[in-house]
């Protein structure tokens, strides 16, 4: 378990970085970047939608996976806690994707939902995250719950790419209008810059939220360990 001061220091650092960068990001998104030709103002939501998706799929989920493997290997409860916290925040970002998606789709493509492979995979990811958290919490004994959740996280992580591929195959066989145009495809330079910048900011936001969450978790775990030591020493 890392030292409390260390967590606090890094949380503060990332907090400041995120705050500053987010201000710049908001400026970029709402003021600097030009309005997209065909979709209009609502397209700006893309700069929240896509980076959230990248964080949920490519940052939070791999963190959960890696710490799950670590837990099964080393059996240290802290690893299970990091995996769980990353999943919690992953749910947050996934929810952002699933809400910004329809908000964007409705005015532009006149539909609340499309079974776009990326969006569909994100939806399934949401269920996997929530299932993971339920499994962790609803298993009676702590270590067993941690083990179960870790195994599920590993299965889920291996599964998500296959979900995506299966969905892609389905869409190629039943072509639908391409919604949520490919990231970085045909983006004009200032748009690409805004997009990439937003990704970096959202990653910083994730790290900040994770560190804050871990500070709380560390405090909880420390109290638990003290209680454990006291009860061990008792006759």
């Amino acid at each position: 378990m890392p030292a409390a001061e260390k967590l606090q220091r890094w949380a503060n650092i990332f907090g400041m970085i995120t705050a500053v960068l987010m201000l710049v990001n908001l400026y970029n998104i709402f003021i600097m970047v030009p309005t997209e030709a065909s979709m209009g103002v609502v397209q700006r939501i893309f700069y929240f939608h896509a980076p959230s998706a990248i964080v949920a799929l490519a940052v939070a989920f791999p963190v959960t996976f890696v710490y799950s493997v670590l837990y099964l290997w080393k059996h240290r409860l802290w690893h299970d806690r990091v995996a769980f916290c990353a999943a919690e925040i992953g749910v947050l970002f996934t929810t952002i994707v699933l809400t910004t998606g329809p908000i964007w789709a409705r005015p532009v493509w006149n539909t609340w939902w499309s079974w776009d492979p990326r969006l569909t995979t994100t939806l399934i990811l949401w269920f996997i995250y929530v299932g993971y958290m339920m499994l962790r919490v609803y298993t009676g004994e702590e270590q067993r719950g941690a083990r179960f959740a870790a195994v599920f996280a590993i299965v889920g992580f291996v599964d998500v790419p296959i979900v995506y591929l299966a969905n892609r195959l389905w869409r190629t066989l039943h072509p639908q209008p391409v919604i949520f145009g490919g990231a970085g495809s045909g983006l004009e330079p200032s748009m690409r810059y805004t997009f990439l910048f937003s990704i970096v900011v959202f990653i910083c936001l994730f790290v900040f939220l994770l560190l804050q969450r871990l500070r709380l978790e560390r405090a909880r775990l420390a109290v638990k360990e003290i209680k454990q030591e006291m009860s061990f020493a008792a006759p």
Partner: protein
Amino acid sequence: MSALAKLWAVVWKDLLSEFRTKELLSSMLMFALIVVVIFSFTFETGSTATREAGPGLLWVAFTFASVLGLHRSMIHEVERGSLHGLMIAPLDRGLLFLAKAIGNVIFIFLIEIPTFVLFAIFFNVDLTVGLEKTALVFLLGTIGFASVGTLFSAMSVNTRTREIMLPILLFPIQVPVILAAVHATAGALNGRSWADLADWLKILIAFDAVFIIVCFVTFEYVLEE
């Protein structure tokens, strides 16, 4: 005795036990048949909408019956403590997973056959078309479902929420299998060629191969108390 022989011993024990009581098979089959019957007559038979919805309905029946069966099959071992007896034996726990999964595949496949027959009657399916392709899809889909299902059922029986936990965990993971199985079944029944079905079959085979390995490796962590 070779590992294969021990594997077969466990599968044989499961099959023998079940065939004496038939409690698992009968309850799974009844459930699957009821699902097919009740949801069949909500559709107009013969219309295009029905033909398209058919394979989906069939797999809904299969997956829900499977979840029942997987849970019951694991509860059986856990309740009487016989799972511990298997854990203390000189039997690799990954091998134990394979044995349990094979047993589950056999049970589920056995109820799929009569369910499909009933389905064929209601939906006027031409059984001379693509039968062998359909059988292969059933088998591959069932393997995908039963492998991850066996692993998850070992977890779900140990949670406070029991049966409910299994479909919550299993269904999101099974999306590729369900998607591929439904589409491949539809294709097979409509007389598509092997080439047309190839992509879906590849997904099923890839899923099965990957997850048999993942479950084989992780099963011991789930058994351990």
